[in-house]
């Protein structure tokens, strides 16, 4: 697939008669309300006995991304079972993370 892709003409020459995706509603605050609602739903779904830790990056790094999880320079909630992998990856990359139990 990749060898053929290298010799293909640039994309755009193919017919693209697909169905256009629906446009988002014209509401400048709609996304914010949606994200708050999603966050509230997530918070409500977390079991009372869920274990988690808080991590944050130390200077000079402002964020660290591993395995689909992002840790910022502010305390970031991370499921406890993901923490060891993130900490090891950070150590391998030379990034300092500070951990606080949840």
């Amino acid at each position, binding site marked *: 697939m990749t060898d053929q892709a*290298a010799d293909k003409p640039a994309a755009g020459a193919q017919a693209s008669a697909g169905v256009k995706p*629906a446009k988002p509603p014209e509401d400048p605050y709609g996304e914010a309300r949606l994200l708050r609602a*999603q966050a509230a739903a997530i918070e409500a779904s977390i079991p009372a006995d869920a274990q988690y830790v808080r991590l944050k990056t130390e200077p000079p790094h402002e964020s*660290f991304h591993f395995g689909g999880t992002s840790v910022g320079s502010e305390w970031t909630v991370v499921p406890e079972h993901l923490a060891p*992998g993130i900490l090891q*990856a950070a150590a391998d990359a030379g990034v300092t993370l500070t951990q606080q139990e949840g």
Partner: protein
Amino acid sequence: MPGAPLLYTPPSPTTGNVIYGTGILFTAAVGTSVPSDVNLGVGTAWTGLGWAYVGALLDGVTSTFAPTTQDIMIEEQPTPVGVAISTATLTFTCNMSEETLGNVNLAWGNAGSIAVTPAGAGQPGKSVLTLSTNFTQVAAAIVGKNAFGYAGVLQVPQMISAGQVQTAYRRAAQQRVYPLTLNSVCPFNTITWTYLSSVATS
């Protein structure tokens, strides 16, 4: 006396079920929640929950369901008496056209980490991808538009990126692409295909 007339009245196809259009590929850490039903077709609902959109693709995303079978034969019959499923794989493939470190990492096994350093005095802003061979699994979902005009979502809770990646740096022939191959590694009964069909009544 002649019998009943012989008719030929085949059923008519439902052309509204003939669907074309691009699919939107999202990936996330295993266990990441999907948006609620009403928001399955809203891109920001996915990204707000931590799903990453792979972005522009060279030739769309392809899902491949490839079972292999084993015929059960007996001497007394030339045709198989049974067909057993030996393996069944579900694969998502695409050629990512947006060169971001996140996409590079995803194509190269999703095992690396990205450390971001902001610009500062004497320090340019930078992001550093550190690779690893400890491939990590991802959850993936393809969102498309179904016959009703609403979202149809094929969701696989556990996949692994383990395909060969060749990226050509060309002057003008083509953009740099990062082929992505995601292979399902979860029980098949955990894979779901959700079709929204009508608006909620209230």
